[in-house]
């Protein structure tokens, strides 16, 4: 089961660029939360702060606190531990090119030292079923490389890979932005099913997508969170003028 996320006074910098300013919000457990906004508004930086991935860039810096469940991820844990609990799906599908489909899904466990062969088989199968890829790949799990799949299949493989470590939170950074419409709809279906079990945060520049999959939506602009509310309210009756301008297509 997923856990909630509590963000307090989060600020982030890339070098001298103040990319996130005073973000405060509560992301509910076992729901999908969408983050929308024009490009460069800081929404990607925000999700990368939730599993400390932004730290892979040496010039990045963060202040404030993020609690995932009852864990303060900046004060009480190392990045490695957090990333095992907070899965991430990236903008471009990024399967490990040298690994088979099976090994791709099992990578998070194997590389972290998990070696129970039988239970691995089961986890791989379940993860692939949960990411709706099982039927398409079950015959050549160990024969085909992850890179040989189509773009949409690769992205679902990446989701399966993230699910295999049984995270509490699943972050998705524009997971469908490089995919065709059919694959996009499959991914959206998937998010819909997964949010029962996981807390999902999805970044998207596609407002319809946010409306379709998420219960809560946050609107980011210029590094600040302008509004955070139920998706219904954001899209029908936003309280901020800028949100209204954005969703009605006046800019962005």
């Amino acid at each position: 089961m997923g856990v909630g996320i509590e963000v307090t006074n989060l600020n982030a910098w890339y070098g001298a660029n103040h990319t996130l300013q005073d973000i405060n919000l509560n992301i509910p457990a076992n729901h999908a939360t969408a983050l929308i906004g024009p490009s460069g508004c800081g929404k990607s930086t925000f999700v990368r702060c939730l599993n400390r991935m932004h730290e892979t860039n040496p010039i990045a810096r963060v202040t404030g606190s993020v609690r995932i469940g009852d864990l303060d991820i900046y004060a009480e844990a190392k990045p490695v531990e957090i990333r095992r609990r907070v899965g991430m799906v990236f903008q471009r599908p990024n399967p490990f090119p040298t690994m088979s489909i099976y090994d791709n899904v099992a990578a998070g466990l194997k590389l972290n030292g998990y070696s129970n062969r039988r239970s691995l088989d089961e986890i791989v199968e379940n993860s692939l079923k949960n990411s709706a890829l099982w039927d398409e790949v079950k015959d050549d799990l160990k024969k085909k490389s992850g890179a040989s799949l189509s773009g949409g299949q690769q992205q679902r493989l990446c989701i399966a890979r993230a699910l295999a470590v049984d995270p509490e939170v699943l972050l998705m950074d524009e997971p469908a932005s490089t995919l065709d419409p059919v694959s996009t709809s499959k991914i959206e279906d998937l998010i819909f099913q997964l949010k029962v079990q996981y807390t999902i945060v999805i970044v998207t520049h596609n407002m319809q997508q946010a409306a379709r999959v998420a219960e809560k939506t946050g609107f980011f602009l210029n590094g600040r969170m302008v509004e955070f509310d139920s998706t219904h309210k954001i899209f029908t009756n936003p309280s901020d003028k800028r949100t209204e301008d954005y969703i009605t297509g006046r800019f962005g």
Partner: protein
Amino acid sequence: MSTNHFPLRSRLRTLTDRAVTGLTILATVIVVAPLVAIFAYLVYKGASSLNLAFFTQIPKPVGVAGGGMANAILGSAILLAIASAIGVPIGIGGGIFLAEFGRGTRLANAVRFTADVLNGVPSIVMGLAIYALIVIPQKHFSALSGGVALGIMMIPTVCRTTEEMLMMVPHAVREAALGLGVPNWRSVLSITVKTASPGIITGCMLAFARVAGETAPLLFTALGNDFWSSNLNQPIAALPLQIYVYALSPYDDWHRLAWAGSLVLIVLIVLAVSLVRYVTSRGVLKGAS
């Protein structure tokens, strides 16, 4: 081009263009010619002298026909094993530092620069340094000192190719591993290095092939040996050394052996270079992007 105000000049320009084209073609022919000549001569001389005895027997005394370079082949193998044991891990480690930890830092730039400069240091100087460092304190020539000299020579090449190959691994692959909570060291070794491994391996082979033909650093470290020896504390034979000694000897039998040895070396090197070309042209990372 309907009106041409300077017909003469125009013709001159065209002529110059043609002449230069001709000259560059000529230059290419002149450059390719010695290569073809060397290869043809080597194959002609070497193939006619190459036989089973070359690979199974040790040199016979002057005047006795036959004999081979089996001990030199074994010696080279031992020297290269020592060299690889030193050069490959350190070189790969340095390359990992340059590509994964040091990107853009001043230290990495300094290391890269020094590696390139070190690559140009004459091999004979490397031999002198190892002589001073190992042979003098030990008071005798040894296989070990020769292997160390060759190993040190491998480091810059291995280091720089490893770096280049790692740089070709897309950033997204690293992110994927880190995003799964995989520790950095594990991510680097099991994901990044593994993804780039075909390129890194061929880079090592290139360095290997290069030092396999090195003679100068062995002259006063491994020294050479006319008999079987696998003792790391004794002088040891090596293929290039043997070629050198036999080439300058006045005996036709020995010349033949030297030609055969040269052919063996060249075949080894051509294989390595072709493999590197094949791997890099095919793209180290088939399918990754």
